[in-house]
């Protein structure tokens, strides 16, 4: 017989499974990163290269040959910050691929894309620092020294962080706190008509004012077959 009081709560039929939570809603109620922290979060795969965050007020310059992975690397710097609740702005990047950004892990709900060219793009990047924590500026032409300095001052003042992506190193006239250079890259996958692109191996040199010492060499998957970024083991 059912004598113990626990049995009063025992259910003769198994309880229905908890309903699946709407993932959008889960993302919305998750506590957001503190606006006052000194670093913006960085994808953990990049910690061995750049440390465990992007310093507020700093500039990161990504130099890669045309089609050599600059967009992939630049957008990757936005992934952890956007997922943690920081708004990001992207200026001057032509026709970015939405699928690729989603695969890299960019939270597209918090990224604003602004179409602007040349001198205006630098001006817009400065204006964006009023509203977002991380600004990605894709340069197609040389930035005037005065405008670049003004932008860096504004980034420091607003405690935002700047990522400059360029194909020609001298387009950005001021050395970055962190500088990432993609020196060479090789795609794997297709051969003569067989297979499709599965990943790109890229060698990057990481240096810059804040990194100290001689530039260090790393080998990355940029991206892997899953569209993410990973450090190559044993390289």
């Amino acid at each position: 017989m059912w004598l113990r009081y626990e049995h009063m709560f025992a259910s003769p039929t198994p309880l229905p499974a908890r309903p699946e939570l709407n993932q959008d809603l889960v993302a919305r109620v998750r506590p957001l990163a503190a606006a006052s922290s000194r670093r913006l979060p960085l994808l953990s795969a990049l910690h061995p290269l750049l440390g465990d965050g992007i310093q507020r007020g700093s500039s990161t310059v990504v130099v890669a040959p045309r089609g050599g992975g600059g967009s992939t690397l630049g957008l990757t710097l936005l992934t952890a910050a956007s997922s943690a609740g920081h708004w990001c702005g992207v200026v001057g990047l032509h026709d970015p691929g939405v699928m690729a950004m989603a695969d890299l892990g960019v939270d597209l709900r918090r990224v604003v894309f602004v179409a602007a060219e040349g001198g205006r793009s630098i001006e817009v990047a400065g204006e964006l620092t009023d509203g977002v924590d991380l600004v990605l500026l894709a340069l197609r032409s040389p930035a005037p020294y005065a405008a670049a300095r003004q932008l860096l001052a504004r980034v420091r003042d607003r405690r935002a962080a700047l990522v400059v992506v360029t194909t020609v190193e001298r387009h950005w006239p001021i050395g970055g706190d962190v500088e990432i250079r993609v020196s060479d890259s090789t795609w794997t996958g297709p051969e003569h008509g067989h297979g499709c692109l599965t990943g790109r191996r890229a060698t990057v040199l990481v240096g810059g004012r804040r990194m100290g010492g001689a530039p260090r060499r790393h080998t990355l998957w940029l991206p892997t077959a899953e569209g993410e970024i990973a450090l190559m083991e044993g390289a």
Partner: protein
Amino acid sequence: MERLVAVLATELSREGEGGEEVRQFAELLGIVETICPWVTPIRLGLCTFPVRGPSRLLGGDSAVLAAVRMDLERAGFVVRLGIAPGLFAATVAAERGAIVGEGELEAFLAPLDVSVLERPDLTRLLPRLGVRTLGAFADLGAREVYARFGPDALSCHRVASGEEGELPGRRDPGIFRRLRAVGGGEDATSVQQGFDGGTDRLEQRAAMVATRLQQRLGSASVMVARPRGGRCPSDQGAFVPFGGLSPAVSTTVPPWPAHLPAPAPTTVYVDPHPAQLLDAGGAPVVVLRSGLLSATPAVCVLGEGRPRSLDAYGGPWPLVERWWGAQRRRARLQVVCSDGTALLLIFENRQWWLEAVYD
């Protein structure tokens, strides 16, 4: 500058006491939305949508206007419609029932009276200086306009010369809130409120800057991305103008058959660029009806650029789909150039196009 259809319902532009106009405007948006999902309410009685997609679908600009007019008249709305690049010209075109093509903007704006700028100070001063039309105003140098009339007039000058699409301050920032208050505006405005009914502080800060930039550069210059299902990289995501607070973007992509395996290209051209694919002898390579290449490709030429030799290629993968009734045959090819760049080419109508770059 993006060509827009402006839908102008003058009767609804002034709000009466009962708020009936807001409710009717929301209903109007719902009807226009069945023709194009990217309808943006500008202010009470005025909304716009980009004409490119619907025009391709329905077969021409006038067909789009006819469809909008028919649907709205059936519901009892009296509207004026027009098409032009940018919000300012589109609104003026709607008042005059005009359709302005891509390169015809300057010719359309030039003969207009300066009073269309709706700036009493300029309207009073400019005719006294002998400047009666937007064309004459645009002919003045930007430096002179700035010196004589101040920074505010500079945006009018840019609009008059067709450089910028809209005048600042012509959008009603409260329109989303008012539409939401009567319900029904939610879908039309792609605005979603936060969990607690409000929006967080970071979001408001970002929205303020985005709206400010939108007023200066035009609404189509400040965008948010939304993933969606599709087979080609160009179908897999869309950019929509940043609209109000908290754009409702889903982070999950619905499954879609036959899309390319990851990694996805990081640059996806909205307008594909023509490309050439040649074999080792310099003859063009095409995709045969069998779905195979006519020869082994060795060189790729993008537009007028220098030839790049190829290291590897994958494909072609044929892609046959029924696109609005007409069968569309395409084939995709991934190529890796010897300089290390990887490209996605697409073959359609005996022509290669550069669709995307794996940057």
